[in-house]
């Protein structure tokens, strides 16, 4: 029997999960205790097989009222792929105006997930954009 204690990150409750499993930690072969909702079970299985995380970072914007805008992966991506997504974003430069939800990168770092803008940046008045 394998056992592990982990903190669920899916909501601010941060449930402390006590997880036990035989051979493979699958949905049916795992026991999870301490979760306030069913998402805890899904989180535990994901965490033991392929941990998923959302990346939130910033990218450069030209011609806007701010130099940066914030972005996120549209859904969680494998934790192991976070550095590839960050590397792919390093060369991204946007032109103002940008709006929330604008896609700045598709298939980010080979994850099949888009990276989208999370903060609108209006054009700087009097600034010409190409």
């Amino acid at each position: 029997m394998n056992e592990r204690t982990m903190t669920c990150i899916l909501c601010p409750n941060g449930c402390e999960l006590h997880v036990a499993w035989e051979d493979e930690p699958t949905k049916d072969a795992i026991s999870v205790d301490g979760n306030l909702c069913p998402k805890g079970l899904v989180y535990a299985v994901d965490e033991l097989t392929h941990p998923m995380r959302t990346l939130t970072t910033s990218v450069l914007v030209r011609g806007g009222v701010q130099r940066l805008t914030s972005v996120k992966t549209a859904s969680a991506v494998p934790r192991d792929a976070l550095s590839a997504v960050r590397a792919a974003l390093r060369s991204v430069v946007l032109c103002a105006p940008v709006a929330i939800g604008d896609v700045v990168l598709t298939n980010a770092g080979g994850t099949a997930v888009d990276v989208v803008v999370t903060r609108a940046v209006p054009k700087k008045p009097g600034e010409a954009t190409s």
Partner: protein
Amino acid sequence: MTESIRTVDVAVIGGGPAGLAAAEAAAGEGADVLLIDRNPQLGGILNQCIHDGFGLHAFGEILTGPEFADRYMQRAREAGVQLQTQTLVARLTPERHLVCSRPGERETLRAGATVLAMGCRERTRGMIRIPGTRPAGVYTAGTAQYLTNMANVRIGRRVVILGSGDIGLIMARRLTWEGAEVVAVVEKLPYPSGLPRNINQCLLDYDIPLYLSHSVTCIHGKDRVERVTVARFDETGCVVPGSEFDLSCDTLLLSVGLIPENELSRQAGVALDRTTGGAEVQDAYMTNVPGVFSCGNVLHIHDLADWAAEEGGRAGVAAARYAGGDRGTGNGERTVAIEPGEGVRYVVPQRMRVSESAVLLSLRVTAPRGATTIRAAAGGVTVGELRLRKAHPATMEQLEVRVRDADGDVEVTCT
């Protein structure tokens, strides 16, 4: 410079989550609402909180700080709130006259009701008195967050973080992602002060060590931070002799607490609670100054913006009703005090009216606990109860109470 006088039903000071929600709610009650913020953009500190985890309660989805702020800005606009940025409220009188200053203009506002939603500031090195030299490279975590996420400034390469508040934890991950090495997070208390999930996703994911019961006892370096001395502290708060060690770093972040920003409130004569650092309010969030309401982080520090916004909404409704002539928001009615008892650090509101309506109490426990019952009792009679599997000072708890008869003051305790 021009000067003018204007009258509004409700003036809201501060355009973060609490202020935006208060303004929207007040406008929803039919009030003529003006929201004032000193920054060029609304949203307050949410704009620099680019991480996700917001909105699960308010919107049922997981949003980043800027997205969460945008939702509230849109809602305030749609509700007909006048939004005025780049405007500083320089003075607030007990009669709710607001002296406002903005580029090229000074204006005096007369408000039927005022909602204080100015948020909070960070505790600094000076406030916690860390000995040592005074080199560059010592930042509060929120300033580091602003520089990294908004100003595109690289703050350092080898970072030690003092304090395990959520902003410090979030910055540990953020700086790691930006290529810095976070050497350690050092916490004086024997338990982390941030949310457990942030310990997991911000520290454990990146093998960043967390030293509990430790603090920084000296900062070294001439022009720039070169290293810090860290020592273990015992239960009485004294350094354990011989436990000191040095960590080499060029940057020290301080995530050592937040202080409600109540300068304007004091000017207006608002009485403050010594524990929360925010106003003392009754159940409609009205302070001792009639018509002046308080909500969000200026009232007490919240761990979630969702709760700050929700509180803002309640204060906004009450402010609109007061401005509309409903003086039944406090004065003259019978009220009872709400006191924190055993195991409870504070309770907001500090007073409530005796009535049929339920009142939501926000509170924090003094120390981490296992299975806990939080009980509110008036004159020995239970008026509200909350059972928890665990309780932690990092997590604000909410408890509904009803005091129908004049049972006496309410005491909230943990067992």
